[in-house]
């Protein structure tokens, strides 16, 4: 079904408009931009919530827009929204709202800062909506710039290296994607005579297996780096460690998701054969990454890095689920992705608060925070428990679905992956112990959570519990689109 009113474009350009307003107002006073940003983010959230509520669990596009754009290249402005995208968009909007709140006290050039946040949101939403490969690529790259500046300008000591590392890593990947897209486009054009970048059309391209493999690798290069999958992860910890809190929230919440989305929306359906061939490799890397990241996380001293590595480990879980290639596992992966985004966002937020209060992020100097900041610590404990996969909290729901889905296909993978649960316990408990327990830290700021922080943390906590105990709504939204994509993948 299609609706005349271009809701999707509205959704897409609302943040942009907000960003422009932020820029303009940012020239003058410093409090206006954040209000603008807040309102915009809230607006986007409302709209996306609306879209989710409007969802009827059907396989087709709920909303679809298609306009002429660049005839010379056969590029069209095509947006489409189904359950999958709407879930991720809702997540994006929600986290962005929090990101704005988190960086409420942004002193340095707030106008630009919030503008960048909003542009980032727009790019992420665009990625989740675009159905024309060039349009998709445009948004895909557009995500880099704001993130780059958020890290490189508002970051910590080694921000330049971190920012450039992030930029280069992701750019290399996405330029491979670009090359593949162009050549695929030409191939399809030569075959059919119509030169187009439309996803649906390109799916029909006839490719030899080797061609498929090459294209698939180029596509995956972009997505795998974004996810990030071991061994292409090394930009993430730096980006997290050097970036501002909002940046970390967005990284964990928005950017990482787009990688997986790209795989299941573009890479797999376009090149099903190649995908099938390479699943074991994917799974292998996922498993290695799962444990490797956990081990590295266990060795870290900087709590932000611990969280960063933990999210690498979790994304390994997600990819494993994708590699299993069946309904349950995929639903699990997507669910875990959403839940992990929320959990990790929560963790990063609290970590930022801890740093504000103690001026340190090192396990050696922290400890005994429960004494001075019981509420904050309670939230931290909750998020940690969710992240180590305590049943009844967010992450577990996704993980168990993945494990079940994987076990039905490849028992061995699942059995190995179960070990990951234990590993996550080791580093998470170390994290908790180093920050909350013991008594070797005298925070200079004794103030426990204040109202704005409550405002940020409560929704997160509620979601962590709610999604842990009753994830059905999300799963219902995901079911149909995923099964459709699985069918395209061409396997029962």
């Amino acid at each position, binding site marked *: 079904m299609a609706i005349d009113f271009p809701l999707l474009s509205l959704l897409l350009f609302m943040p942009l408009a907000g960003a422009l307003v932020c820029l303009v107002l940012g020239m003058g006073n410093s409090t206006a931009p954040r209000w603008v940003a807040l309102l915009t983010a809230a607006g986007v959230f409302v709209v996306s919530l609306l879209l989710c509520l409007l969802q009827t669990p059907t396989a087709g596009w709920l909303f679809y827009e298609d306009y002429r754009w660049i005839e010379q290249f056969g590029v069209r402005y095509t947006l489409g929204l189904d359950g999958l995208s709407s879930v991720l968009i809702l997540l994006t909007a929600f986290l962005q709202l929090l990101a704005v709140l988190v960086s409420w006290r942004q002193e*340095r050039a707030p106008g630009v800062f919030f503008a960048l946040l909003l542009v980032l949101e727009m790019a992420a939403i665009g990625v989740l909506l675009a159905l024309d490969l060039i349009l998709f690529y445009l948004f895909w790259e557009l995500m880099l710039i704001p993130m780059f500046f958020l890290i490189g300008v508002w970051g910590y000591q080694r921000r330049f290296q971190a920012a450039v590392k992030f930029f280069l890593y992701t750019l290399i990947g996405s330029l491979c994607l670009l090359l593949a897209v162009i050549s695929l486009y030409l191939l399809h054009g030569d075959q059919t005579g119509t030169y187009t970048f439309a996803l649906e059309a390109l799916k029909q391209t006839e490719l030899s297996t080797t061609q498929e493999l090459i294209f698939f690798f180029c596509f995956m290069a972009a997505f795998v780096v974004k996810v990030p999958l071991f061994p292409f992860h090394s930009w993430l910890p730096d980006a997290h460690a050097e970036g501002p809190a909002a940046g970390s929230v967005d990284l964990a919440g928005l950017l990482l998701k787009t990688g997986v989305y790209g795989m299941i929306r573009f890479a797999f359906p376009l090149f099903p054969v190649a995908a099938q061939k390479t699943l074991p490799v994917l799974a292998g890397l996922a498993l290695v990454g799962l444990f490797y990241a956990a081990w590295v996380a266990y060795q870290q001293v900087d709590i932000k890095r611990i969280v960063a590595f933990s999210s690498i480990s979790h994304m390994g879980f997600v990819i494993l689920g994708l590699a299993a290639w069946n309904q349950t596992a995929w639903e699990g992966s997507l669910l875990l992705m959403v839940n992990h985004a929320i959990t990790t966002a929560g963790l990063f937020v609290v970590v930022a608060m801890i740093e504000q209060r103690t001026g340190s992020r090192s396990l050696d100097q922290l400890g005994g925070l429960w004494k001075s900041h019981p509420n904050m610590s309670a939230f931290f404990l909750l998020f940690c428990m969710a992240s180590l996969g305590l049943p009844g909290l967010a992450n577990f729901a996704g993980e168990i679905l993945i494990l079940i889905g994987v076990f039905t296909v490849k028992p061995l993978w699942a059995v190995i992956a179960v070990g990951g649960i234990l590993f996550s316990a080791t580093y998470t408990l170390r994290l908790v112990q180093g920050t909350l327990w013991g008594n070797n830290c005298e925070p200079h700021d004794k103030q426990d959570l204040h109202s704005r922080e409550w405002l940020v943390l409560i929704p997160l906590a509620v979601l962590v519990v709610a999604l842990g105990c009753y994830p059905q709504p999300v799963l219902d939204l995901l079911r149909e689109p995923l099964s459709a994509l699985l069918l395209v993948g061409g396997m029962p």
Partner: protein
Amino acid sequence: MNQESLQSLLPQILLALGSTAILLGGAWVRNRRLWLLVGALVAIVAALVAAFVEPPQIDILGMYSASAYARFCTVLWSLTVAATLVISCRYVDIFRFGGGEYASLMLFAAAGMSLLSAATSFVGLFLGLEVLTLALYILIAFRHGDTRGAEAGMKYLVFGAVATAFLAFAIALIYTATGTFNLQAAAVGLQAGDGLRPLGLAGWALLLVAVGFKISLVPFHLWTPDVYQGAPAPVSGLLATAAKGAVLAAFLPLLVMSGEGIADIKAILWLLAIATMLVGTFAALPQTNIKRMLAYSSVVHMGYLMIALIVAGADGSRALLFYLVVYSLATFGAFGIITTFADENGEIQDYDDLRGLAALHPRRSALLAVFLLSLTGIPPLAGFFAKFGLFQAAFRGGYAELAVIGVIASVISVYYYVRPVIALYAPESASVCRDVAARSETLLLVGCAAVIVILGVYPTPLLSLVALIIP
């Protein structure tokens, strides 16, 4: 030489006359701004004429053509010069240039460029090129008492002279081989397998050297960074954009044709393109002086344009023109920003001097970021679609390897393009405090940025225009 041909040459004539007039006038009225603005006006008028006045005849004495292509180039260069003049207003005051001379030389250069890209015979080509070069000799060393400017002028002079000699010898040899100065005919004559062909080939070799110097291809690029660094920022801007573009535009029609001789030349170009892209990229990495960095970046971009030149055909030519426009916009913008940052104690060139300028000048810093990122080719800036068209053309023309190398180069380029940007946005501010830019400058640069962004989101208009020019 009849009246039609004069009419057809109207823009160039306007430019030449204008420049001489200003030169004269400058002797009496010593008001810098006035002359700069007059010059800009003349250039704009010329551009308008070229754009909208239909020339009575296309072929002018077999030396120049008034084809849509040539007129498009004229418009482009005239506008560039006009913009350069506008951007120079404050600069010229600060360094107390002779306003009249400056403006007239600029116009003179414009005339040269438009003649150059309109040339259909070697004579015309040589004439145009020399007119341009002579003007540039002076402009580069225009800042009086500035040793670096002098050095840059000297270096450019030596190379210019040698290149002129090469070019002239090349023309002579080709003429000997083919017996015509007409470009097309000469190139066709190259095919003929008669005894004089080696002579022709030698001529082409020399020609390539001359061209390589003018648009600074590796290994003829070594002068570039020094000259750009020493020359006044606006002049460097002109050097990097129009001066190179004109030469490229002049040689584009030659390579559109195919054939055995051309194939050999393309092989050379292929080599040069790869060398230029890679060497330029790597040489730019360790730069800490923004003008030198931009010099190397221009080298790299010439490498990209070589790709289009090699692909040739309609695809290649269109990609080349589109790229040329976008690149010129961005590069001009970048040099323009440097111009506006200049003050009594000189231009700021080192990244250390750029540190934290964003705090003082948010607008211009943002603009510089836009320009540099567009050069990097990041969407949604025009640079992306320029590169996109280029690589796509390369793929179609069967030069995938060039596209891949180009991609690699542009990945690495990120590093040197973002370094100054990050420096700008550093938290700690540099001691130097620059005075604010004139409104005209800001407007102009904002205009450039706007165009870049618009073309980045919606390149269709320019694309269709280019398609119109190159059927």
